[in-house]
């Protein structure tokens, strides 16, 4: 599955993005006014690429990712175009969209404790996702996949811990479980919405390292959402900066860090401690620019 996907990826012309978002607008219409929280947003993600979406709280980052998944809260409307691997997602009906969710595009959220159901073991919750998309898979097989997925995210003693409940894990381990759940389906695209915000700094670095490792091993694309520029600097190659639902600036990580055009970006950069170290780290990181030529990134 993964191999054939990667072959396809290689066959595709380099300028053919895996995900192409055009004029995405998310709004909460009320009787009086329509409150637009994402405003004509456009960006591209090259195959196997990693895109960071950065912006302060309330800038519309989560709404963008939920719009892609068609999981917006009740009352929200979306318009525009979201093309994922030649499929127009906005045209899909719910049952067809369900086959995309989890299996082709997986999501990882902030605060893994509240995002895992306290009543089921983590193994159950991983296996449940797997069985939803692979018909005729036995419980035992799905259980084995759960253990394997947990091993892939370096949870030690996975065969035993697969039977643990979420509350029995530490925060970092829970986020690993969430990632294992996303991984179990071998998705082509992983959207991580503030995956490290609830974690302390050392654990943050581990989780980001894990996401990079997974991307290298599976060739999956990554959209990493964060309010912290330091987080994307080491993990993604392209960045878009959002504010109040608008795209402020976009481009390769190096460019955003070295010559930010917007004042807002500069302000965000000032909030990042030791940017130079981050850039150095990023430059020495073998993964960046490893598989694709820098594209023009987001076109406006």
């Amino acid at each position: 599955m993964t191999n054939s996907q990667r072959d396809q990826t290689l066959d595709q012309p380099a300028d053919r993005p895996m995900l192409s978002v055009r004029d995405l607008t998310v709004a909460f219409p009320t009787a009086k006014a329509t409150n637009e929280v994402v405003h004509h947003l456009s960006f591209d993600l090259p195959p196997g690429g990693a895109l960071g979406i950065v912006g302060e709280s309330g800038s519309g980052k989560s709404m963008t990712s939920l719009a892609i998944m068609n999981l917006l809260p009740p009352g929200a409307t979306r318009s525009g175009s979201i093309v994922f691997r030649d499929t127009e997602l906005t045209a899909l009906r719910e049952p067809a969209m369900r086959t995309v969710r989890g299996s082709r595009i997986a999501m990882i959220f902030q605060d893994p404790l509240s995002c895992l159901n306290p009543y089921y073991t983590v193994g159950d919750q991983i296996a449940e996702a797997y069985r939803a998309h692979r018909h005729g898979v036995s419980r035992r097989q799905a259980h084995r996949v759960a253990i394997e997925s947990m091993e892939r995210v370096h949870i030690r003693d996975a065969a035993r811990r697969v039977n643990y409940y979420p509350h029995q894990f530490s925060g970092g381990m829970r986020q690993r479980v969430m990632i294992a759940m996303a991984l179990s389906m071998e998705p082509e695209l992983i959207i991580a919405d503030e995956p490290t915000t609830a974690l302390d700094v050392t654990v943050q670095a581990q989780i980001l390292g894990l996401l990079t490792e997974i991307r290298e091993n599976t060739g999956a694309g990554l959209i990493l959402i964060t309010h912290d520029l330091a987080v994307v600097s080491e993990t993604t190659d392209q960045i878009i900066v959002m504010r109040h639902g608008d795209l402020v600036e976009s481009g390769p990580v190096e460019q955003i860090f070295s010559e930010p055009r917007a004042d807002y970006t500069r302000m965000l950069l000032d909030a990042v401690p030791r940017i130079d170290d981050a850039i150095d780290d990023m430059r020495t990181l073998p993964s960046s620019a490893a598989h694709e030529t820098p594209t023009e990134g987001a076109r406006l």
Partner: protein
Amino acid sequence: MTRQVLKRLAGMVVVLLLVCLFTYVIFFVLSPDPAVQICGKNCTPAKIDQIRDNLGLNRPFWAQFWTFLSGLFVGRTYGEGIQCSAPCLGYSFQSSQSVTSMMVQRFPVSLTVAVGAAVLWLLAGLVSGLIGAINEGKFIDRFISGLTFAGMSIPNYVLALVLQFVLVVTLRWLPFPQAVAFGDDPVQWFLNFLMPWIVLAVGYAASYTRLTRANVIEALQENYVRTARSKGLRPSVVWRRHALRPALTPIVTIFGMDFAGLLGGAVITETVFGLNGIGKMASDAITKNDQPVIMGVTLLAAFLVVVGNMVVDLVYTAIDPRVRIGASA
């Protein structure tokens, strides 16, 4: 875990002892002299004295209470030679039957009424609560809300009379109730109990619908429901596994208490339908001031509630993994 259970058991024993004491005080000290009642119409002071002697009413309160209490565990002897074996709750003033054997005789009826009604109201409450929650604000939700409102406000006896009139007299869908044993005619037996079950279940079903709806709506807001959707699970799976399941935990607690309460007799329903259960026994005893029976029924109800409470606590521990298994990992 074992320590917890033992602690609860000890607490339960203390509560039951206190209940016994209060019941005893209320019925045997504060209410009119039972000896006068038993004595009946052509009564003489000598006769009353003799009865008082037989019942031990001339002895100090604590001695009487002690006899009563030990009667519960080892039995007691009245006057000369009337042996009342444990658990002894005395004899009915009306029928002179042993209260314990009266309760043993009638308990199966109350149990049948309670179990059947519970099955009905759980099914109706959970299903319509879930349907209401996932269609929040839509027509079907408002319709169900209207029904629950009606179900909660209509008194049991009114509902019973209306149902009897409509189903038995007008439509003739149900036969006229006749007492039959399950073994003799299961169909008639079932039809007999159908109306009491429905009447008793309606009020509970209404409140369980509301409870389930509120809990499921709350659960649907949880982040883990969003996760479940993001995994591409079917809505039915999301609702059942990720919204209904967490919503059930508080319902189990309330159900345990409601059910335990009903085992002690559904007074109105049993009386209206002429079912010889504990509830009817209680209402008959109250109208005739048959103190030993009233006291026996009260103690049984208290016992069931206390035991029910403990069972609920234990079940609660068992169904929530966060309580059952500590965070040690």
